[in-house]
């Protein structure tokens, strides 16, 4: 509808222009020629638009017809992701331990210093210990992701078995929430913007 309106508008504009030029010598043939010319232009535009849409459909068709096989997802892709994440946890743990090794040595040496210098060093060393909390929080966040990946892997395996007819659809494991209420309380660290402060927790604790 919009195209037809656009076409009509252009036709009138260009007809006005043609009339200005040709005046009384404007013929039916001129008008017909104008109309055919515009229709041709619109047809080209329409054709380009359709070509673009066809290209996108073709791309999606190819992606749908050749996705990673579910066996590859559960057999390779997810276990590989698990290994990578596990490696991250181990690497940060090793690095943190190395840092703490050095920091403890600095702390011991600072303890032997008298006066303000020793105290200043120990104060900074304490900050390093406090900052090293990060490794625990990072590890817990990664563990959360790993658990999610394990649930996804289980769901894919169950779906594959259901599709192949090995199990009933009704027993597909879609990573149901743990029935144990205590386990349900272990959700890991919250995101920074949602996390309450120690003061918030103290208030809640005192009121509980």
């Amino acid at each position: 509808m919009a195209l037809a309106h656009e076409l009509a508008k252009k036709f009138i504009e260009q007809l006005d222009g043609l009339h200005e030029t040709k005046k009384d010598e404007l013929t039916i043939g001129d008008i017909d020629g104008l109309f055919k010319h515009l229709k041709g232009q619109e047809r080209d535009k329409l054709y380009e638009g359709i070509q673009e849409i066809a290209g996108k459909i073709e791309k999606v068709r190819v992606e749908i017809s050749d996705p990673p096989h579910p066996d590859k997802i559960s057999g390779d892709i997810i276990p590989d992701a698990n290994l990578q994440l596990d490696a991250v946890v181990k690497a940060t743990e090793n690095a943190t331990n190395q840092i703490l090794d050095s920091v403890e040595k600095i702390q011991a040496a600072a303890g032997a210093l008298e006066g303000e210098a020793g105290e200043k060093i120990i104060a900074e060393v304490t900050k390093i210990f406090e900052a090293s909390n990060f490794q625990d929080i990072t590890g817990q966040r990664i563990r959360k992701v790993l658990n999610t990946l394990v649930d996804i892997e289980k769901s894919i395996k169950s779906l594959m078995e259901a599709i192949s007819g090995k199990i009933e659809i009704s027993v597909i494991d879609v990573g149901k929430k743990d029935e144990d209420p205590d386990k349900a309380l272990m959700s890991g660290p919250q995101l920074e913007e949602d996390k309450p402060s120690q003061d918030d927790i103290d208030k809640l604790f005192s009121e509980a």
Partner: protein
Amino acid sequence: MPVDKNMPILIVDDYKTMLRIIRNLLSQLGFNNVDEATDGTMALTKLEQKPFKMVISDWNMEPMSGLELLKKIRADERFKTLPFIMITAETKVDNVIIAKKEGVNNYIVKPFNAATLKSKLSAVLGAF
């Protein structure tokens, strides 16, 4: 009564770096008689072997969570009043409420600093 800084303290966490951090911060506060456990079962075994005066535990551990460890400790008449502080990244309202209901003495949120640790220990043991 002054706080006995030689009191035996049991710290429980499945991350060894966290045990190291807590041990160091306790040492800076003057508490050097510290033992470690990396899970709840180990913690319960150690409680049978030594008369600890305080437990500081993480929550998020498997197979036995810090909450389950707390419940088992409180279920034992010998440890009913044993001071227990939870140091954890679990910060939802339900967590705090249930921990208190099960008898936790104080609740520290990770990441924490030395001042917070001192403040919460003082709240449980008395000023030092």
